[in-house]
């Protein structure tokens, strides 16, 4: 898993022309693109991304995208499949490092620190920017160990009692404590899908991150489990900045305060969720939310 991330100086011009079919197609399809509609900045940002470009080999997946992730609010990323929304949030905690051919340029900052700085250690970064994945992926260990793993490797607790406390508060915040408090020793993989996903959220918040990234956290869950997770996201918003990728526009409308619409690697429009869904500023956004494609 050797990574070949190269950091380049951010360019304020439009995305450089790229060779290969993907790049060509992107360039042509977005002929009428004249910059992101709406304000990409927020008053109180947890993370700021400026002029981010991402390549998978020759293929450009994100083109010149700037976006802020606001504190104590949920921003949802919507858009058709392959539009780059997952790629974008995976840049925010450098999960893309695990893909050999992936190359990221631009400027992404967490508390003023450029996270793609060569000297930056990804381990504390990922403790600060946690991630919940599409498919619930608890470790094949006990429920307790799943949550305790993060605090243990980061040394967040002095002793066993401290770990116990973190496990209890994390599971409580994730709304799972009452369901599992009598069987913390049972394997996490034995829980139902929705419980597993909440366990993964508990595991993420156990290391007290600033930002939580969620990559389609409900796409593998039934509607009731989805509703539980959505309520949970709404509660978590008070303590964390949350970025959620979703395929469901209803979900975006329900849980988020800001919405960003991605199309073919570009951030087309961003704004308050209510505005985007009632009064979209760009033709592509309107087409997408009215169901004309996607």
């Amino acid at each position, binding site marked *: 898993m050797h990574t070949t991330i190269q950091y380049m100086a951010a360019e304020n011009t439009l995305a450089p022309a790229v060779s290969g079919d993907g790049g060509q197609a992107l360039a042509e399809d977005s002929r009428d693109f004249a910059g992101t509609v709406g304000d990409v900045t927020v008053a109180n940002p947890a993370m700021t991304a400026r002029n981010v470009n991402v390549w998978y080999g020759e293929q450009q997946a994100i083109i010149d995208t700037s976006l802020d992730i606001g504190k104590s609010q949920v921003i949802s990323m919507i858009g058709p499949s392959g539009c780059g929304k997952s790629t974008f949030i995976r840049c925010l905690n450098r999960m893309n490092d695990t893909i050999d051919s992936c190359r990221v340029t631009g400027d992404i900052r967490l508390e003023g620190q450029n996270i793609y700085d060569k000297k930056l250690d990804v381990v504390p970064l*990922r403790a600060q920017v946690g991630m919940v994945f599409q498919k619930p992926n608890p470790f094949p260990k006990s429920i307790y160990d799943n949550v305790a793993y993060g605090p243990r490797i980061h040394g967040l607790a002095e002793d066993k009692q401290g770990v116990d406390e973190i496990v209890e508060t994390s599971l409580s915040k994730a709304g799972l404590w009452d369901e599992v408090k009598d069987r913390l020793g049972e394997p996490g993989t034995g829980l139902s899908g929705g419980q597993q996903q909440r366990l993964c959220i508990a595991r993420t918040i156990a290391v007290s991150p600033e930002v939580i990234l969620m990559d389609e956290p409900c796409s593998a869950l039934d509607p009731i489990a989805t509703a539980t997770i959505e309520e949970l996201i709404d509660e978590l918003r008070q303590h964390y900045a949350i970025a959620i990728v979703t395929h469901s526009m209803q979900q975006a409308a329900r849980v988020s305060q800001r919405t960003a619409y991605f199309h073919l690697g570009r951030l087309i429009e961003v704004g308050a969720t209510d505005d985007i869904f009632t009064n979209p500023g760009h033709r592509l956004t309107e087409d997408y939310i009215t169901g004309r494609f996607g």
Partner: protein
Amino acid sequence: MNSHSDKRVRTIDRVNASLAERYARERRFRTAGLAAVSLGLLFVSFLFISIVGNGYTAFHQTKIALEVFFDPQQLDPDGRHDYDALTRADYGGLVKASMRNSFPAVKTRQEKRALYAMVSSGAAFELQHMVLADPSLIGTTQAVWLTADDDIDMLVKGHIDRSVPESERRVDDRTLAWVERLEQEGALKRRFNTAFFTNGDSREPELAGIAGAVMGSCYVLLVTLLLAFPIAVATAVYLEEFAPRNRWTDLIEVNINNLAAVPSIVFGLLGLAVFINFFGLPRSAALVGGLVLTLMTLPTIIIASRAALKSVPPSIREAALGVGASQQQTIFHHVLPLALPGMLTGTIIGMAQALGETAPLLMIGMVAFIVDIPGGALDPATVLPVQIFLWADSPERAFVERTSGAIMVLLFFLVTMNALAVVLRKRFERRW
């Protein structure tokens, strides 16, 4: 509407028409598979029946009952029970005297020699053991069961046909008559053959055992396991998780895969050239055998371990990385425990392969005739498959059953190891 339903009927008719042919094809395929499995089972059972049929008699040994007078004149003329004197005394003479007493009619030198030949040359050592263990036996007369010669053993077990003319038989009429007399007296019995499990190799089939070969195999496998498992796992983890993908790692990967297909005797030549001739390690030693088999099994274990590492779902790695585990923590806390059952299975399969290997060990001198049971990895030793090879090459009829007997022991170890692999896999298998 009408035309639409017509079309649907036609579709279902077509499906029905093709159904019979489809099922027939599936049935034919199933039958072919079943036939292949049955044929395989047939051959396996044929193999087992033939080996067990040939070999089960190896676990019995014919014994002759003799009244032995432990003559103080011969054993201990001083009466001091001196250990050295007792060790050196003429026990063969005791056996001969007892045989003469049992068959008083035998007078001529030639006849006497034929008579003495009925008892194994090991009988003297059996008496020696008895006396050294309990010197108070001296001066008494005891009924003792002594090991019979291999020809007598074969005669009793029915491997020598008594009805053929004397000239075509290994046992002459005179001896046959003595044997029949002993059988009538009840002085000839088949006992469980402990010597087969406790003795080393011998030129006399009735004294030959597999203990030396089993110990040799144990030392060789121990050396192989201690070296091959850590090296292979470390290699697999490095190549799979840490190594950059470039021309060098590609080259290493291709070479490892090719090494798995190299004929094993080549590893024997390599071991001879490097370990014995260059490093000067002792010939025939289990250590060198273990080193050679390590080289041979490494590719197998590396390939199995890499496959096990690859099969760990990426979601587990992402989960660990996502909470801020370093790459090494991810591997050692999550990936390796999940890959371990696969690695262990690969290791045991590799060990089983090493246990059955003969050719490379011939090259490093483990084919020597070694009587002593090895006491360490540096002692001269042989291994089970080589012992089988040696016995299969011996002319005596009694070695035929011992060959099969040793094969049965080897198969027992192999089946046990493979069963262990299955159990380990089942036990440590985790779902995710």
